[in-house]
């Protein structure tokens, strides 16, 4: 089907078709009689669609719409603050605990070495995962779409 037909159909459906365009549409239909059936189908479905409208939510829902967004934004910030604070405290506590452990003269050197190796391993793993996540986030243009 040619593009002109789609344009003329839209004009016909919107009742904005001029006499000249009407003749053009008739000429296209005359050339290809199947277009008449297509046009009639479009008119029928358009009539159905014209009668339909979405249910309108109550005034209270619209009144609370903005508040809902505002609350979610505010709580989002609160969660970020709580998470960052907790992370800082956990990291500080962990560093202090490791310091105390390493300075303890009673602990054998091999245990200290093993503990240090575990901590370094965990840090390298965390760094590696984080770097991969950042790389994927930067490169994936469809990141907003979950697969």
């Amino acid at each position, binding site marked *: 089907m040619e593009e002109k037909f789609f344009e003329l*159909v839209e004009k016909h459906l919107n009742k904005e078709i001029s006499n000249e365009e009407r003749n053009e549409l008739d000429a296209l239909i005359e050339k290809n009689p199947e277009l008449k059936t297509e046009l009639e189908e*479009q008119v029928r*479905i358009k009539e159905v669609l014209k009668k339909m409208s979405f249910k*309108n939510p109550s005034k209270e829902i619209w009144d609370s719409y*903005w508040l809902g*967004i505002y609350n*979610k934004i505010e709580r989002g910030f609160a969660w970020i603050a709580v998470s960052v604070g907790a992370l800082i405290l956990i990291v500080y506590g962990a560093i202090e605990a490791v310091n105390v452990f390493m300075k303890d003269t009673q602990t054998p050197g091999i245990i200290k070495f093993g503990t240090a190796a575990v901590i370094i391993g965990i840090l390298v793993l965390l760094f590696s995962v984080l770097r991969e996540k950042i790389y994927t986030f930067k490169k994936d243009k469809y990141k*907003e779409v*979950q697969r």
Partner: protein
Amino acid sequence: MTIDHTAKAEFEKLVKANMKRAYYTALGILGSHDAAMEISQEAFIRVYRNFDKYDRQKNFFTWYYKILKNLCLNFIRDNKRRKEENITGKDYYNENIFESYEQKELNQKLEEALLRLDIEDREIITLKEFENLSYNEIAETLGIAKGTVMSRLFYARKRLAENMKGSL
């Protein structure tokens, strides 16, 4: 990210000016009041987080719609996955989204037919037939040519008519 008071006021104004269009567009795509409410609000929150990237020379809804559509796609996929994996949760899609006066049966059939269309057809029908956007506005929102809007509308209506066979 925090934004200053002027930008916050501007954001609030944009939400209030666009919330109905946002909700109804999501409703046409998702077919559920609760989901449309949730997703359209979430899209505004994403806008807020990226408000420094908002180009004021361009139409706000065009930018917002890209975010909304992605969230709708995610929602549909998650919902489908939940159903496939038999994970129980909130059942969206058990409501009538159209005003029902004397034509309740027709409403039901149209809703079913609309939800059987793919998202591309649903979005263009919603924007034109229920949101009454002009061809130019649809072209700008979807980033396609005006002629393409017309041909996509034609085929979307055709597929909708096929889904409603016997009811027209």
